[in-house]
């Protein structure tokens, strides 16, 4: 399914993400790495001293769409595969990969690139390449057999 090119919205949304990173960094001294924040409220060793601030960040993420719906009256357009195997495999790989690499699109991609971390630059190039190759295989090699 084609999507419309939205440079202005994407730039503005990106700027909001940047503002969030700045707030967390300069006010709380923390990196806005979402896989890390989510991981720290999970077992086996829950980060107890930071539990409520990490949970509050997650709650903020969950409240975003309801807020958009409240003010605009429109549900944001979203489309996802309905294939349960792909959903499960994708979720598992994202969880395992982000925890192993100690970061995802936010921690390595946004925060890491912003502070010019060598580790994060390598991580970002690696996951962008792997993701693009995966989509290429799914769409152009398997030709939409699985979607």
């Amino acid at each position, binding site marked *: 399914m084609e999507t419309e090119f939205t440079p202005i919205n994407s730039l503005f949304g*990106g700027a909001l*993400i940047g*503002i969030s990173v700045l707030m967390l960094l300069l006010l709380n001294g923390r990196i806005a790495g979402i896989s890390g924040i989510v991981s720290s409220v*999970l077992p086996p060793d829950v980060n107890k001293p930071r539990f409520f601030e990490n949970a*509050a960040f997650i709650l903020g*993420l969950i409240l975003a769409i309801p807020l958009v719906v409240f003010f605009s009256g429109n549900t944001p357009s979203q489309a*996802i595969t309905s294939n349960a195997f792909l959903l499960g495999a994708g979720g598992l790989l994202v969880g395992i*990969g982000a925890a192993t690499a100690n970061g995802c699109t*936010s921690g390595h991609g946004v925060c890491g690139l912003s502070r010019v971390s*060598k580790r994060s630059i390598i991580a970002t190039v690696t996951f962008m390449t792997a993701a693009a190759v995966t989509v290429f295989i799914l769409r152009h090699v398997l030709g939409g057999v699985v979607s």
Partner: protein
Amino acid sequence: MRIIVSLIAGLIFGLGLVISGMANPAKVQNFLDVFGIWDPSLAFVMAGAIAISAPGFIFAHHSVKPVFGSEFNIPTNQIVDQKLLLGSATFGIGWGIVGLCPGPAIVALTGSMSEIVVFLAFMIAGLVVVKTLKSEPGIFSTT
């Protein structure tokens, strides 16, 4: 105060993901589909975010402490190892398969896609499994 900052930061981050299109798996997959129906929009998300946050890291580097804390918790690890490379590659494959990374997956919980619960359940399982392995001696061990 730190909790209120985190809540507002999470909300702004989430709004950014929704407005930018990052929370729409179809748009993410089209961004990654360079040789197909390529939608380059999401490059602008990265550009917008980094343009704002990069100066903050320079400022933090020259500051003693954050407003509501005693120190900055910024990673100091510089090691490029197999965990970083294989972990990132694994993450990228999962991101490509569904078009969701952790932030958008959580944001999508209150959206229109019921399928998200399957993705989230497996993502959380993956995080917990690796976290458990890291706490024990072995290839994932952090000590």
